[in-house]
């Protein structure tokens, strides 16, 4: 059974003449442990898809199934609990709490879940170590570089040991070197720690790290490709594919 499945997933913003169809009857599935990238030009609906899958927003029509369970039927509090325990988010702008340290930011989902601070901090420290942030535990976000902040955000996404990581343009705000590092880290999270990753990006070099890529345009999935070959070759192929969209 796929970990994620969508059925006729549709999202329409506004009503009447000003209505905008962001997602148009999307049917897709993500297998457990898979690293899936969604690509497409700006405004194609890829971020909306991510938000619906993560239970951040509610669809106008259709369903999202997480391990066969319908997210759209859940109450707000249950959705929040689900996001705390089963899903980890990584955003383009990191969205760290500016007044908390790296360690506290990373521990946040556990703290919100009522885990004792000592234990939450121990767990968060472990993940920060693994992601190469062991010497920056007590720095505040404004004392970290963009790439470091994104690592803290990834540690936060992983700290509750969720099965599913949703990443929305995680390298969009980084220079190419830091972007590559983050992409490689995501690859490792999938291969080494077996997490399912759904990544939204328009950068072929980043998407080239994924197992499979969905191409979107105007709220619909128009193509799909499974990747093989070296990273650079894949990236070139993707670049060409994107140009045709």
């Amino acid at each position, binding site marked *: 059974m796929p970990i994620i499945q969508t059925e006729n997933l549709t999202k329409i913003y506004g009503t009447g003449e000003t209505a905008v169809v962001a997602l148009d009857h999307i049917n897709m599935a993500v297998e457990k442990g898979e690293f899936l990238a969604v690509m497409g030009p700006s405004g194609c609906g890829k971020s909306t898809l991510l938000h619906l899958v993560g239970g951040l927003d509610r669809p106008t029509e259709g369903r999202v199934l997480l391990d066969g369970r319908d997210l759209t039927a859940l109450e707000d*509090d249950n959705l929040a*609990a689900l996001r705390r325990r089963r899903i980890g988010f990584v*955003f383009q702008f990191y*969205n760290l*709490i500016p*007044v908390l340290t790296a360690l506290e930011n990373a521990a946040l*989902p556990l703290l*919100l*879940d009522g885990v004792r601070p000592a234990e939450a901090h121990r767990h968060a420290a472990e993940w920060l170590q693994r992601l190469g942030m062991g010497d920056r535990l007590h720095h505040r976000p404004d004392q970290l570089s963009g790439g470091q902040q994104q690592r803290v955000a990834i540690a936060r996404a992983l700290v509750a040991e969720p099965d599913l990581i949703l990443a929305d343009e995680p390298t969009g705000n980084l220079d190419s070197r830091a972007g590559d590092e983050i992409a490689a880290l995501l690859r490792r999270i999938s291969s080494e720690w077996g997490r399912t990753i759904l990544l939204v990006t328009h950068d072929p070099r980043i998407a080239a790290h994924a197992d499979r890529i969905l191409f979107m345009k105007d709220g619909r999935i128009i193509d799909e490709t499974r990747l093989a070959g070296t990273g650079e070759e894949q990236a070139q192929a993707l670049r060409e594919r994107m140009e045709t969209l």
Partner: protein
Amino acid sequence: MRVQLMMALRYLRGRKLRTALTTMAVVFGVAVLFGMNALLPTMLQAFRQTVMAATGKVDLMFTSVTDGPFPADRVEIIQGMEGIAEVTGSLRRNILLPPDMASQAGLNAVTLVGVDPEVAARMRHYPLKEGRFLAADDGDAVVVSKGLAEKLGLAPGSTLTLPSAKGTTDFEVVGILNVPSIPGVEEVYVPLPAAQRLLEMPGQINVIEATVKPGVDRDEVEKAALAALGDLFKAEPPEVGEELIASLEMGEIAFALFGVMALAIGAFIILNTFRTVVVERRHDLGMLRAVGASRRAVVGLILAESLLQGVLGTAAGLAAGYGLAWVLLLSVKSVMQQYLRMEAIAPIITLPNLMTAVVLGLGATLAGGLWPALAAGRVTPVEALRPVVPGAYERAARRRGTVGAVLVVLAALALLTGNFNLAALGTLLFLVGLVLVAPVLVSPLSRLFGRLLALIFAREGRLAEGNLARQPNRAAITASALMVGLAMILALAGIVTSTFDGFMSYIDHSLRADFLLMPASLVLGGGNVGAGPELVEEIRAVPGVAGATTLRLATAAVDGLTVQVVGVDPETYPQLSGLVFRYGDSEEAFAALGRERAMIVNGVFAAQRRVKVGDVLTLQTPEGKREYRVVGVGSDYLNAKLVTAYISQANLERDFHQTADLLVMVEAADDADMAAVQARLEEIVRKYPSFVLTEWRSFREEQERVFGQSVSLFNVIGVMFALPSLLAMVNTLTINVMERTREIGVLRAVGSTRRQVRRMVIAESLLLGALGTAFGILAGLWLGYVLVAGMNVSGFVIPYYFPYTGVLVAVAVGLLIGVGAAVLPARRAARLDVVAALRYE
């Protein structure tokens, strides 16, 4: 809750200045509430202790229910009663000392005690230092305390001159008592007949004291004695100085109200701050929701923050309040020592006061944080991760605007009903309504003011106007913070102006005679010694005097309400002076006063007992119950604030045994030589040291000056209200600049100079100031009108006067705050590093 507290603490620490500024609002309110409540009971307690110390050891004490005098033969009723050992009647009265003697003695009044020398000496122990105690056959003899004798240089055989109904009376000092000086109360003992002569109260006493036989149940005897005396008497633990206690208690209530009002403003500032905080942190909040924080957790975070500020502010407020009480206490200490002889007092912290301050301080902050917290809980993760959809916002604003408009209309209707309670409720509706309507009005109003602003800031003005119109909600929040502060200032100005003009018109209408012979204390009953009929007769005989009229005074009770009864001459009083009538006709009313047992009641009386013209009320007089018909509702200047009834002097003499004149008004003839009249009057008054001759014009000027002094106190209060508004404006403007960092970066990138950016922020602030001022003036005028109406309902009638000066001040303060609030944010905006600003998120 732990994680919310931790984050709240971090957020507060991360924004130290803002935390300090908002917390100050709470500190201010709590300090006033707590400090004043710690101070005033201290003064009350000290005063009560002082008074208690003065009453010696007698078992029973009876006075008339009116606190007035009664015939001395009432003593005989108790004399033979079972269980009574000794009984005596005495006449006790505070008398004000003439100024020169007062300064020499270091106190401005003494208590004259007229006693029956033989019985008194048996009932109380009077330890003598020198000389002897009073004897039955003494004439004008006096016994004073050691302390007073030292101050005035008295010894047995010397003379003590006291003010009396005949002018002055000389007493021969026969003895010096070896008693410790009782703080605040200096008693001088004279034989009862001498006291009656001095006070022009022949055959009258006002206290019956008795001791009971050993082994007898005191309470039983008291009950039996009371039954025998009849319902004109009451038994009481003796206490004097009730007027002062009453005014201190009034002060307590007034300051408590002021503190609560200040706290309400504090709550509003907290509300405003947290509303901006929620807007500012939309991304953070959305992220928290995204990583799994429930709505409740987010609400809890904002509430935890306001709670922490409440705890901080309340704690600091308690400390500041205690300090405030000390400072005030030290500043009034000399006055208290001089007039009340009270020393060594410290602020009292009572548990109820502490609890009230804590509960209200925390309550106000939590209440202020609640709405924003709930709003924060409604932030959805996605909403926070992308820009607001304008359509949805406008709909919400329009809906709120409609609700606000309905509230304003309801408030107007409530005001029109003329019912004070409804009008007061209406004021609340009005303020809430205005806050809700404000965002809808921001666009049109900022266009209007923007046009004016464009004259000074040609390009930046357009940008600033656009910025406000784009974020009408934010602009409205900021403007409403200013609105509340200005509304308070203006409402105060409204009351002050109306009271001031009202008082002056009272003087002009009810105390208008060329010359006034006033008692030393302006409150008629404040321990003044009156004058006998000789004084006014002598004055009437002065060449050039067209007429003179007098006021006399007694107290009565109506159904347990103590009423001050002022005796006027129905013939001469309306000619020379008169009352400001609210109901009834002046001519008819005074005619009725002369004809029958009729009275004119003042507004406070009418309001407290819902008295109408034509009602017949039963007054408890020293002679028993007497029915008086109400023939008018009106008041004079001196008695506007006290429950007062005006009756004829003939009735006052018949029912209250009062014949002493306490105030004389003198009208000179049109062709009189004013200087000569004044010179002659001065000569006469010299024989009556308890009176001061005042020319009407200088009296009016003096009153105007005294009033002006209290107005300056209101100015201080006004500043206190304005300061938090300034803080709130600085707060929101700073947040505005922070939020638009990227935008400012873009402006700079496309070629705006630092100066232009600075001017843009200032222009925006000025626009906000103009908006807030417009709202504030509207709300302030409304509030002031309702408050004046409220005073009128309570019977203290003053007409509403439009506070022109207040409006001008409000405009000036509003614009000043507008510019002042922009200084820091404008500098911050102008100094932004362009590249960093463009990257800012």
